[in-house]
């Protein structure tokens, strides 16, 4: 692929256009409009584990600099779907992904794409904080060092910690072991670690489920700040969290085959979060968000 207009950034790694000038492409009939240009475009995405369907036929656009929430009951494939967005499912030998996931106009699963580069640009924060058994400083510096990023490391660490609203709390104990931090601080450290490698998307898989309300509030405040510079996709079981922080919400349900032996997830409604939580179009969404069904 040659594009004379490509910037320096585009020519690196994935060859994606990080300036975010993806043109509005053809939107399949029935797909709700997103408020902004898509950073991800999922077309007929299905995921299987050992041949068994886990997520069925998902087509969604995820917008730039917005927070998109994936909600739904346990087993509906939310985590499976979010893990497709940075090819984390590649690490599961039995997993296979069908359809296409277009990231900045480029197929994320194309043979030429380096999964490591994908995960650098599309970072992930998990349910439980997972800092390395290292100092606060080294946790942040780890990614840039591994990736051979050039520049003032102290500055990189400080910027990442400031970006995660953690700097003021840890600036005097950067050499302390990260395990000594509170759960909420550890989670923000993981977000800072993610930011240190300068991604443009942050995926969050139930990032607050192990945190108390105060720490949860700090993470949510942080998410609102981060979306100025990053696109965020979050999986959450907390309906109110989805309502509080996200711009768009996708609702997935669990479907069963006639013998009720196999189950898989499917997106049945995707819309503005305000719409999902005030006047959803689908009765199943209504029943789920109001808690009438589990």
């Amino acid at each position, binding site marked *: 692929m040659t594009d004379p207009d490509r910037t320096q950034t585009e020519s690196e790694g994935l060859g994606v256009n990080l300036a975010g000038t993806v043109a509005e492409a053809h939107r399949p009939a029935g797909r709700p409009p997103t408020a902004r240009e898509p950073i991800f475009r999922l077309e007929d995405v299905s995921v299987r584990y050992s041949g068994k369907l886990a997520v069925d036929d998902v087509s969604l656009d995820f917008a730039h600099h917005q927070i998109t929430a994936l909600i739904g009951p346990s087993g509906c494939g939310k985590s499976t779907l979010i893990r497709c967005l940075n090819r984390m499912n590649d690490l599961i030998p039995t997993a296979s992904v069908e359809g296409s996931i277009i990231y900045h106009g480029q197929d994320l699963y194309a043979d030429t794409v380096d999964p490591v580069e994908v995960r650098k640009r599309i970072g992930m924060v998990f349910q439980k904080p997972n800092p390395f058994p290292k100092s606060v400083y080294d946790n942040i510096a780890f990614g840039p060092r591994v990736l051979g990023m050039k520049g003032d490391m102290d500055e990189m660490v400080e910027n990442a910690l400031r970006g995660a609203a953690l700097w003021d709390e840890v600036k005097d104990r950067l050499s302390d072991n990260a395990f000594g931090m509170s759960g909420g601080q550890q989670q923000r450290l993981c977000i800072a670690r993610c930011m240190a490698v300068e991604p443009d998307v942050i995926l969050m898989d139930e990032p607050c489920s192990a945190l108390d309300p105060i720490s949860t509030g700090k993470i949510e405040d942080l998410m609102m700040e981060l979306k100025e510079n990053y696109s965020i996709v979050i999986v959450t079981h907390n309906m109110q969290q989805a309502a509080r922080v996200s711009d768009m919400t996708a609702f997935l349900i669990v479907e069963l085959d006639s013998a009720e032996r196999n189950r898989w997830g499917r997106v049945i409604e995707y819309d503005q979060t305000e719409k999902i939580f005030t*006047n959803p179009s689908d009765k199943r969404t209504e029943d789920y968000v109001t808690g*009438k069904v589990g």
Partner: protein
Amino acid sequence: MPIEGTRVAYQEELENLEHRALEGLDLVVASIERTNEAVQHQDIELAELVIASDDVIDGRYLEVHQAILTLLATQAPVASDLRLISALLHVMKCMERMGDQCVNIAKLVPIAGHEPPADERMLKDILTMGNAVREQVRQAKRAFSERNVELARDLVRQDDVVDNLNRECFRLAIEIGTSEDRREWAMTMMLIARAIERIGDNAVDIGEQVAFLVTGLFREFEDASHPGEDLAQNPI
């Protein structure tokens, strides 16, 4: 009917809240009936009873309002549950205002005096208005409990009748105002007509909440600043 599914206690609480709120409209209907009778017979004692019994309506307003706040704080309702809560808040406000209008009318009964009515036609129009708005409130309650948008929209038609009678009262007030006493009586009756007309407007407001509850979109059935326009097709 027993509720199936999850959050059963919450759903029962919501149902009970709606029941208590709509019962409040029954209190208003009773108050309108008494008010109409007090106006018809210039019954000052009955008018005082209307004023006293408004405390019951205010009490119901406070009770349901507090329960709604508790439910919002503890259950975080969303989607149709949230719309129901929002609509009930409006209904309760309308209920409280309609009760106040009955009090306003009741306070005017002694002012209208013990003399025979200065004009039977005007009194008849006002009593017709009173009966009409009582039926509007009943219909508003039925439309809400049945989630019946057509029934709710029909309130506009009924309200037009009340509005026309109000205008007729105004015309009669000018016509009969040939002496100071008659003018005073006519002005007092105009205030009563105006209060009744506002009750009708409140019933229409409840109808609009029915449409919001069912469709999720708020539309004014009629816009006072653009009379005659059907706003059902156009969001405000």
